[in-house]
């Protein structure tokens, strides 16, 4: 029996050939043989009548190319002025974007966790839980870490920093901003009660927080960064306590809201009965945000103190929208209430977060 083997097999193009499908397979963490099998099974290549041998050779070449490119992808701006691979600009953008894309199920698991070695050790479990291949988990985790490390110390708007340094699309840069923001503030997202929330839900909330509650939100000239919530603002939130501590004000607020909502929402009676509790919940959350621990618990608090009561009373989203709108706006008409701007800044974010989070 003859035993012969291909010792060496390479293909190098002056313009680097990148097969997007194979790239995805590589990114998804499939081994060469898995990738070959999947390509053989896919319909897309059936017309080429490619044999396993040809596919194996091609897949190997592609995988090697990706491995060589990976080093550059870690610092995407290098890809544009490196000389080793001649890749058209739009292909470069594709390579980078795809490399930094992540599975939301994976990101959901890591969200709010410290991007440390410890978390990295848990990746096996996450891989098992999410069905994302371990290799891919590692890449995604490393991407989070890399982006975090770079933008953590940078000044200026977070999203733009991510975009500028990693040449990502706007939406992907926003997602990374969310990941970085959550990792930095270590928001609690892992509690059982929060499990129903998706990555997109949190990303949206992160976007709101970044846009309105950080230093950069009020003053882009500030030499501070977007990653942290504005301390001063959080401190000032204590002033909102007046809304629940002042009995008159609370009553007045309630009657104004009830007046506005009467006949407009189905859960009116429940709302009327619960108004003080709900208002107290929101104001309490606000007043406690000076504590790092309580900042971390922002989302669990919102769920436990506000969303769950509403849900058990079977509020519709429409009900909730109307309630929050009028709850916010009527406060302005309270004669004794002086913290209009602060209130608006707080409630704007809280309202949109709650609405985003209010689903099953």
């Amino acid at each position, binding site marked *: 029996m003859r035993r012969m083997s*291909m*010792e060496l097999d*390479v293909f190098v193009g002056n313009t680097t*050939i990148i097969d997007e499908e194979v790239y995805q397979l590589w990114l998804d963490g499939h081994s060469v043989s898995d990738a070959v099998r999947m390509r053989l099974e896919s319909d897309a290549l059936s017309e080429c009548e490619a044999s396993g041998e040809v596919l194996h050779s091609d897949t190997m070449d592609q995988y090697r190319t990706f491995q060589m490119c990976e080093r550059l992808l870690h610092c995407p701006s290098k890809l*544009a002025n490196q000389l080793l691979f001649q890749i058209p600009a739009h292909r470069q953008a594709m390579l980078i974007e795809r490399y930094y894309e992540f599975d939301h199920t994976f990101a959901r698991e890591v969200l709010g966790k410290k991007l440390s070695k410890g978390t990295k050790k848990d990746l096996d479990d996450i891989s098992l839980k999410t069905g994302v291949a371990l290799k891919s988990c590692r890449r995604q985790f490393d991407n989070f870490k890399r982006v975090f490390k770079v933008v953590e110390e940078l000044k200026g708007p977070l999203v733009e920093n991510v975009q500028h340094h990693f040449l990502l699309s706007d939406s992907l840069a926003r997602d990374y901003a969310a990941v970085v923001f959550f990792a930095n503030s270590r928001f609690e997202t892992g509690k059982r009660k929060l499990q129903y929330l998706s990555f997109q839900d949190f990303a949206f909330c992160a976007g709101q927080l970044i846009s309105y509650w950080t230093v950069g939100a009020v003053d882009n000239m500030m030499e501070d960064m977007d990653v942290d919530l504005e301390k001063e603002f959080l401190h000032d939130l204590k002033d909102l306590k007046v809304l629940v501590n002042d009995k008159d004000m609370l009553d007045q607020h309630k009657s104004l809201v009830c007046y506005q909502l009467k006949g407009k929402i189905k859960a009116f009676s429940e709302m009327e009965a619960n108004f003080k509790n709900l208002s107290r919940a929101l104001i309490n959350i606000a007043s406690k945000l000076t504590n790092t621990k309580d900042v971390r618990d922002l989302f669990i608090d919102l769920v436990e103190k506000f969303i769950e009561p509403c849900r058990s009373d079977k509020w519709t989203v429409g009900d909730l929208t109307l309630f929050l709108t009028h709850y916010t706006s009527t406060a302005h008409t309270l004669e004794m209430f002086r913290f209009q701007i602060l209130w608006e800044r707080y409630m704007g974010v809280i309202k949109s977060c709650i609405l985003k989070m209010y689903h099953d």
Partner: protein
Amino acid sequence: MPGKLKAKIVAGRHLPVMDRASDLTDAFVEVKFGNTTFKTDVYPKSLNPQWNSEWFKFEVDDEDLQDEPLQITVLDHDTYSANDAIGKVYIDIDPLLSSEAATVISGWFPIYDTIHGIRGEINVLVKVELFNDLNRFRQSSCGVKFFCTTSIPRCYRAVMVHGFVEELVVNEDPEYQWIDRIRTPRASNEARQRLISLMSGELQRKIGLKVLEMGGNAVVGYLQCFDLEGESGLVVRAIGTACTLDKLSNTYTPATAINPCNSSPSKDIKEAGFGEEAPGVPLSSGPPTPLRAQTFSSFSPSKSYSRQSSSSDTELSLTPKTGMGSGGSAGKEAGPLKALLRQQTQTALEQREFPFFTLTSFPPGFLLHVGGVVSARSVKLLDRIHNPDEPETRDAWWEEIRQEIKSHAKALGCHAVVGYSESTSICEEVCILSASGTAAILSSRFMQDSALDTEHRLSRQQASVFTSGAEKGEGDMGSTASLGFEDLMSPGCAFCHIPYDELNMPFPAQLTYCHCCRRYKVPDVLFTTIDLPTEANVTGKGCLIQARLCRTKKKAQGEGNATAISNLLPFLEYELHTQLMNKLKLRSMNALFGLRIQISVGENMLLGLASATGVYLTALPSPGGIQIAGKTPSDITYEQHISNMQKKINDTIAKNKELYEINPPDLVEEVIGSPIPEPRQRSRLFRSHSESSDEVSELDLSHGKKDAFVLEIDDTDAVEDIHSLLTDAPTPPGFYSCNTEIMPGIYNWTSALQMFTSVRVFRLSNVNLTNQGLNKVFNDLCENLLKSLYFKLRSMVPCCLCHVNFTVAVPEDELIQVAVTAVAMSFDKDQTQENGRQSIDKNLMKAITENEDQLQFPLELSAESSSNPLNSAKGLSEVSGPLPSARAPSVDYSSFTDRCSSWIEQLRLKAHTIRCGSIKTMSSLEKASPLPEGRSRSLRSNRSYAGSSVTVVKMTPLSFIPGTKIIKYLGIINMFFIRETTSLREEGGVSGFLHSFIAEVFAMVRAHVAALGGNAVVSYNMKECVFMENPNKNQAQCLINVSGDAVIFVRESELEATPPQPHSASAQTSSSGEGT
């Protein structure tokens, strides 16, 4: 002090971390030229240092400027220990020495280390100030331009083709100078790289001197190779064709920038137009040839002679003064006159030691007749060289081979060899030297003594300078003049006419009358090493044809080994030839172009690989089918087997005809009738036994007519042959392939271009293989490689792999290495059928009408009387006469080459060269010549591609880039790299190692081109890829040698966007006015 070299080190980027503690690097740079070294300051703690150094000035002889590279070394400063080298950049400053090439080298160069590969980049600025010192006895040849391109470069015009230049230099190989000490890989590799760079420079300088001596100013088709002989030395040798080139000036008259060489894409279109015509609808234009013949016959037939009288027109000064009467001589004179002319050419050529030309395509009117392939091989023993350090022995070896080639050509009735190349294969102490080319007859137009001509040229140039306006037609005129020489008769078939006397044929061949003009004889099959002449009439499309062969050989040493190889070679060549023939017929084609036969020798086997592009030349008879004949027709099952096989073959032929669109126009012609009835009748008579060709278009599957090629199955070998014939997988739909520059039948190239290199090494473990087993392995290796290529490039469909260049090697006992470099080019299929068709028709019409306008010189209708014997045509007997063999130590091989040559000689043809059509298209293209601003604009836009800081550099093995116009040649790229690793596994194994090395080589080529200000490399060639591995020691080493021409191109679409020049229109009219 004839020159001052200035260098400035600007900055570095992406440097590697050299100090683990700080994760940074303290880099500085040493700049060395000759024995002078300068240093920059240390730029501390940065991976992106900004040195911004002063100008380092080297005052040097221009001799050194030519030989030496500028050597830039980047180091990491270390206070306590020795500075660590990061890597090096070698910059060949030769391009700066020619006034027409680059003026400055500026850009980012990869910093290369032979152990670590590319480690960051460095930005360098280099300039040269030359002081002209004309009185000096010249050791240097600054200013002689070198081109790898094997045709006249695009923006030049050939004034004179002087002929063959060669040179060879020898040195000790540094790799073998460490024997007593420990080999330090980096030092050894760098010494080798530097030595080869030096030797290349020296070689180029010496060849330049020869060119100057001959009165030329350029070398075209420059091919430099190195032979790693091992302990006997390191040889760098080069061949080329010395020319005098005129730069087509764009400054004054863009419209005159006519490309005298005819293979720009536009010309392809034109050329394709001719091919298209043949299989086309009968009513489109009828048989093309008679039509053209009529057109031409309206001119006086003696036109070529009017050209010779210089009084008639200064532009005609290119032709020799023969003292023949000027115009008006009757057509009958043409024959004898022509013979005389040819004699003249011949003497002109015979004065030369070697009338060889490395060109593969030719200026119009230069190539008259193609005789066939000539080749010679010789086996030598390297350990028997008396003076290994001196070049004499090798010179003698090559001299011997060239003499042989020359005598073969002579025997074929030809006085020149074109498409000439030389190669070696070395295994231990055995070296096979090979040379091959195409015997041809050339016009003397570019070859006579130059003095007078130069004067004329000068005056002409002046004229064109002074008359920039109305004389815009100058270029057109020039090209018309150049094409108008002697062979303006039937375009596209003349070069197929046999050059030799049919009554005294040097070999047995079937002659028929030319299927185009019906006047001259043509052979049944034609093999050549040149590119398909652009004017050739081709039916259908072409395809890559390969013959592959593997033969086992006993391990042996010294003379015994050499003898064994010598004995094997003839069989190898014979079988390769048979395979080629069979495969050609299987595709129903009748000619091969670009034939390249590579024989590679290993310890225990010989590999033979022949590649060529098969086409159906309209002028040649339709090939018969392949008929299988069994030896013993007694057994019924056996007969059935045979008939099954016959059916398979017939089916394949039919399929191939469809695939390659081969529908010879015979039937059409038959119906319409030829305007020249008499010769046609004769041809019919002659062809009486090859009538099957007429039924071909009806897909007659029998093929069993008398002219069928008979394959006798009398042994297992033959069965194998047939199997291998049928196992060649057809190219997948949408793909075509060829190893020449141009693919007949394809035009409308898009700008999508992908040059690539693919390398495979196959290990034959368990070596008790039979020849057949080996053959199968080798065949599968090549076939699978092609399949992989088609798969990889599937996104480019419809596309053609052009200039597919296979090289095989036996790097070790059980390894077979195959490397391919080619370019995939997309074309627009729909356009071909619809718009393309229209535009082609239009082009064609235009070309024809313009031809009429332009052929202001009387045309010679009968270029040559077919009974005119060649003086040099000799009988076979002379060919087979043994050459004097000498030299005791080397095994002589001449008797073999004779045997060999006899088969080669069975294939030949001849050519008339008519380029009227193509030239015209060129000029109509030229009308859309750019305004200077347009050019610079497009250049800029090209450089600032999508905001990236890296210039996109295209690379192609072809001499052109479709849809673009080359506006400047910046100099030759000739680079040699060694890469070695002692951590093979960590670098991804052998594949990972070689993959990154090839990518690095591409990157360095691109960087050098970009630094010269260019945006493409044309005629790119990977001449050497020597790969050695030792997996057990986790080591591997690879040497790569690449070459090409750095150019600036601009897109034709951008050129067209600029308003057409009013001048060119007037030029058109003025020239036509002259014509009448």
